[in-house]
């Protein structure tokens, strides 16, 4: 193990810790958030951070089988955010 790969190992651990911390912080906002908009923002942030976590997992294992997972989560996250917004705005998702 050369110096460069060791540094990358520590960088991946650092990024894991930081992104996990971000998930916890947005979960706090999801619980305390005073308005509905805040809760939707917190859920959207959690979906985006989950994509980051999956990408980091693929990096740490050196495979790229996880890219389809993150693509599907990105699409479903966008659709669910829009569905929440439409449900609050119109009382219905598909009119």
């Amino acid at each position, binding site marked *: 193990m050369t110096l460069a790969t060791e540094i990358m190992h520590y960088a*991946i651990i650092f990024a894991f810790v930081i992104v996990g911390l*971000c998930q916890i912080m947005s979960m*706090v906002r999801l619980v305390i958030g005073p308005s509905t*908009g805040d809760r939707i923002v917190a859920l959207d942030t959690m979906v*985006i951070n989950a994509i980051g976590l999956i990408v980091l997992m693929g990096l740490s294992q050196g495979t*790229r089988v996880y*890219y389809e997972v993150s693509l599907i989560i990105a*699409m479903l996250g966008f659709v669910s955010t829009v569905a929440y*917004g439409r449900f609050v*705005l119109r009382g219905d998702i598909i009119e």
Partner: protein
Amino acid sequence: MTYEIVAIYAVVFCLVVGAIFTLVGAIGLLKFNDSMTRLHAPTKVGTVGVGALLLASVIYNGVFNEGAVQELLIMAFLFVTAPISANFIAKVNIHMRSCEKLPELPGDEHWATLDVSDEDQDLTKDLMNRP
């Protein structure tokens, strides 16, 4: 060999930048004091942070596995959809009255998002009455 080392340092740089941007977005989401300002932090900064993480994955897989441009697809998708969802959440904030009232426009003009019938104007009242 040297160019692989350069690629690894590029991956490390992208990882650190992405982690810090994501952290800044989450701190903004947690600490700001108004719904509209809270909306701004994660939808812009967090998207850039995850974009940097995906860029790190692209560089790593491009050098050590057989090239991977599919992560660029996820990046493009995220960068396109983040403003759209932010726009929807801003509309929710406006209609739920959880931000300041929009300023009056001069003359006969009015805000397009508030251009609905009178009984639909105040969604909070409507939500309270809903069974």
